[in-house]
């Protein structure tokens, strides 16, 4: 599980850098028609990333007059990747007989989903606590998928130490995703809502 998260992230950063590269290129004099296009296009970069990954490299840098590419990975991701969210820590593949029963798998799938919602703004939890979508069990949720929010819209409550903390959206936009179910525990920095600005 952690591996998935790890590689999802790695891919994201790769894309990030790719985007940067393209940006730089765009500002350079236009000579895109030339077949010998001195830089790499997206397809080539994709191939490059595959190539580097396939060979198990953990660092790749490339630079010429026009571009500079750098790819890097954590060298021992399988072993050292740790849980990144409030979810049971992943079991060690080499120790299949772990005595712990790992029952609380609630947020596991969500994490992978969240990683793919790259263009959404994430409202994250500023504190550790329990997530509630409505002010009290018999009330309507503050927001639903499709709701429009402005920066001061209250989107949920995170209860910590018996205190109800109202969380504001802090951006304007449309609620596209709700990552956490009502009543579920959340940790610091955990994405709660995905907002399309």
């Amino acid at each position, binding site marked *: 599980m952690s591996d998935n998260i790890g590689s999802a992230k790695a891919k994201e950063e790769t894309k990030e850098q790719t985007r940067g590269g393209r940006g730089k290129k765009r500002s350079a004099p236009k000579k895109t028609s030339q077949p010998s296009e001195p830089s790499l296009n997206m397809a080539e970069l994709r191939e490059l990333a595959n190539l580097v990954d396939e060979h198990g490299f953990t660092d790749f840098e490339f630079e010429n007059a026009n571009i500079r590419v750098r790819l890097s990975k954590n060298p021992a991701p399988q072993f050292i990747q740790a849980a990144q969210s409030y979810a049971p*820590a992943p079991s060690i593949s080499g120790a299949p007989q772990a005595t712990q029963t790992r029952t609380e798998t609630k947020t596991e799938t969500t994490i992978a989903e969240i990683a793919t919602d790259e263009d959404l703004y994430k409202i994250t939890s500023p*504190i*550790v606590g*329990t997530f509630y979508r409505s002010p009290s069990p018999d009330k309507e949720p503050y927001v639903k998928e499709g709701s429009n929010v402005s920066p001061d819209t209250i989107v949920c409550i995170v209860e910590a130490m018996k205190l109800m903390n109202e969380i504001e959206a802090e951006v304007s936009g449309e609620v596209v995703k709700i990552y956490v179910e009502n009543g579920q525990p959340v*940790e*610091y920095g955990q994405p709660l809502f995905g907002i399309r600005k």
Partner: protein
Amino acid sequence: MKKREIRKILIANRGEIACRIIWTCKEMGIRTVAVHSEADKEALHVRYADEAVCIGAPPSAQSYLNIPAIISAAEITNVDAIHPGYGFLAESQTFAQVCEDCNIIFIGPKPNVIGMMGDKVEARRTMQAAGVPILPGSPDPIEDIDVALKLVKEIGFPVIIKAAAGGGGRGMRIVRQEEDLAAQLEMASTEALAAFKNGSVYIERYIERPRHIEIQVLADEHGNCIHLGERECSIQRRHQKLLEEAPSPVITPEQREKMGAVAVKACKEIGYSSAGTFEFLLDEDGSFYFMEMNTRIQVEHPVTEMVTLADIVRNQIRIAEGEDLGYAQEDVQIVGHSIECRINAEDPVKFTPSPGKITVFNIPGGPGVRVDTAVYPGYVVPPFYDSMIAKLIVHARTRELAIARMKRALEMMVVEGIKTTIPLHLKIMNDEKFQKGDFSTKFMEEFSYNG
């Protein structure tokens, strides 16, 4: 008999001690919850705990010292108890009290005992009342030279004049003869005033070459208390311990019994329960004086574990469950000799921190070698916390063999990518005075790295 069962523990700490606590919890069949800052997402304690909760941003104040975040994490994960480790909130009376108020077992002594021992003046007073020897001197500021003269007649020379508000050596003056006293007192007071805007000074017996000896105790809720012998912690640099041993090369069985008995008696009088440590200064004549009591597990607890085969963390948990200690003083046997070297991510000469990525990390194995660490190849030492990355501990039949073993283990421990104190420890192991056991807390001041 357990009064209450602990099935799940939140570890309010990081690094090797968090892993250390997880190891024992696993052996006891207790589930564990790791809390971590954003900087520690890939830390080993997060990896090995059954559950993990991110509690805040990298700075300690926002994560490992963030009481509401930790208590919230304990609540959402439904733990029975919190183990504070050492450092961070381990000696916070407030934290222990909040745990109690939230019905979470704090694995340590009662909040009021933590508070009592955390206040230097109160601790001194309490210990004195419990029959623990205290360094002769004036607990209160010295008003004038006459008071000072009267005092030094009682306690004898040399004495040290210290700024009441002070610290870090400023305002400190050592006086070896009566005729210097008045002048030094005035200068110390002037210095203190300049440095701390408070000219108050006090006087204490000065020990030229003290040793730092500490006694490990275990006490349960039912009034049972034993000690596990002493640790020798004199090898320090700026009051930071570098390496520790058990037993001390200078403590005789009689001295051990005497110091242990004093500590055990004091524990019983203050109603102490859990593991704890009495720190003493030992002078050249073998007299010892109370410095402070640490109401938590210590970094150097493994040397005691090696020579007694006790698991101190297990005892802390059992005591927190209300269990009886289960063994008596005569069950404690000191077998062989143990040394611990703290491997820090630091320049071995200048002691400047050296955070960064560990590219190669090879741990020594074989007979009598123990490594407590949360580090692995590829781990990045964050700049936010303590620089200790591992504890290398050896055990052998004699001190001489333990030193030989430690040298071998240090040579075989490979850490690349950052600087560490491994070369310094090797130099200390090769030092003749160290080998003879002939040293005091002044050892590092007189030690030349290149000599």
